[in-house]
């Protein structure tokens, strides 16, 4: 259950569908760098429901063949340059979605149902582009069209959290989308800041924000595992470094330079 970062990312197969969280949630940057070093490819990235630096870096490194997301953005640092470049050059298959559609698809997998209805979306070109989304007549009221979305069951949920315990329980606090990802995914891989000796489920306060070990496949302790992105309640984002990334990533050469300095160069790579 408790392992190291290389073993953790080594469990992700080529061609796996991998669910990741937004930069303001459980952003597993150290794991993403390890995954790039590992050379795992042809990944189907699922952003829950949007992603930032993790996605841009994996796409830039050529690890990704398709992306399902409501958005890829670097927030205040602007558009995601490697994502934008890959889209323009058709290097990734795009499956544009909208935030609640991704949550709903994961909830369908969580409930073991084949699909989930969702309001809205009708008249959006997303519905035209997504051949896996359908429109149904609400069986409970005449002439009420409603969109139905297929369950989304990722091969892997990959995220970073503040704390785990030795039993493999992972504390995520109010970042409940991480629990939804763990419930929906076939396998859940987590990096954490610290591994505590106390049973998280034995503390009535922490238990409420804890993913039980039942849903967790492996955990690796990685201090500052979200760096250069921040971790809520623990440390802020390293905005200088993120600006530097955004500047370099504007060109393929600059991005390669970033990889050489901060990813392939193991020493500085968490």
């Amino acid at each position, binding site marked *: 259950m408790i392992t190291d970062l290389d073993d953790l990312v080594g469990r992700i197969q080529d061609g796996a569908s991998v669910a990741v969280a937004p930069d303001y949630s459980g952003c597993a940057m150290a794991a993403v760098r390890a995954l790039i070093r590992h050379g795992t490819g042809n990944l189907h990235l699922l952003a829950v429901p949007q992603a930032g630096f993790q996605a841009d870096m994996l796409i830039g490194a050529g690890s990704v063949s398709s992306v399902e997301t409501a958005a890829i*953005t670097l927030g205040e640092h602007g558009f995601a340059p490697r994502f934008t470049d890959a889209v323009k050059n058709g290097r990734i298959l795009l499956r544009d979605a909208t935030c609640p*559609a991704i949550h709903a698809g994961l909830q369908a997998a969580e409930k073991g149902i084949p699909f989930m209805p969702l309001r809205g979306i009708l008249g959006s070109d997303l519905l035209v582009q997504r051949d896996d989304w359908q429109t149904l007549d609400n069986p409970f009221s005449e002439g009420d069209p409603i969109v139905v979305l297929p369950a989304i069951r990722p091969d892997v949920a990959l995220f970073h959290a503040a704390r785990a315990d030795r039993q493999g329980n992972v504390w995520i606090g109010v970042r409940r989308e991480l629990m939804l990802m763990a419930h929906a995914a076939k396998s859940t891989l987590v990096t954490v800041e610290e591994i505590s000796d106390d049973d998280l489920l034995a503390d009535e306060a922490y238990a409420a924000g804890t993913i039980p070990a039942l849903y967790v496949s492996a955990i690796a302790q990685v201090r500052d595992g979200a760096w250069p992105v921040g971790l809520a309640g623990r440390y802020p984002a390293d*905005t200088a470094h993120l600006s530097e990334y955004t500047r370099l990533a504007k060109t393929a050469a600059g991005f390669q330079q970033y990889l050489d300095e901060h990813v392939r160069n193991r020493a500085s790579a968490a």
Partner: protein
Amino acid sequence: MQYRTEELLITAIAPMLEGLAHVAVGAASPVPGAAALLARHRSAGRLRVSILASEHHTCFTDGGREIFDCAAQGRIDAFFLGGGQIDGGANINLVGIDGYPRSRVRFPGSFGSAFMYFVVPRVILFSVEHSRRVMVPRVDFVSAPGTSPDRVYRPGGPYGLVTSRCVFRFQKESARFVLHSVHPGQSLDDIREHTGFEFDVPAKINPTPEPTAEELALIRGQVGADIGETYPAFARRVLELEANRI
């Protein structure tokens, strides 16, 4: 008194939130977020403001889906959406320009627009840039439509459009924008020149009120510090707050 365009937009948006119970602010929305916090201040705390990605200015405890479930439950009165392209029918495009999927210009993506636009009663569209590049006759990609056929369940929709040049209100019946107020230094001709879609013009055109000294003090003070938690760069660059204030 000197003020920045963003500060004018903040004070132009805030009154649209008066009397509401709960306003939510989504991704990449520092100006709407600041406007919501300003309106909350004016409401003496009666207005609840939920800012996505904020640690302190949100009450949500059920994960990323809660803001959408909450809106679907009818518990969110106002929300903000932007658009790389916005057309005269209030259709918005957050995906890309010129072709799909290989768009010549790619935006981040639709975020929650295709849902929130349908369920939040008062959706305020926002775009600092007001040019024919953004304000187009017809969006290249409809992330979310401005209006829907009657049979479509839609308690929500567009309320207005706030830009760096003016404020439009949306008329559901005609599915057209009507000019509501023009910002200082802008003329109707300027707006027509830079707007790629047709819109209605009332007999009398109001100027957008300038920010008062009291409003600017708030924006550059508590409101700026609060929004700076989620948008530090915005707070530093636009509101010129020192990092230690954020």
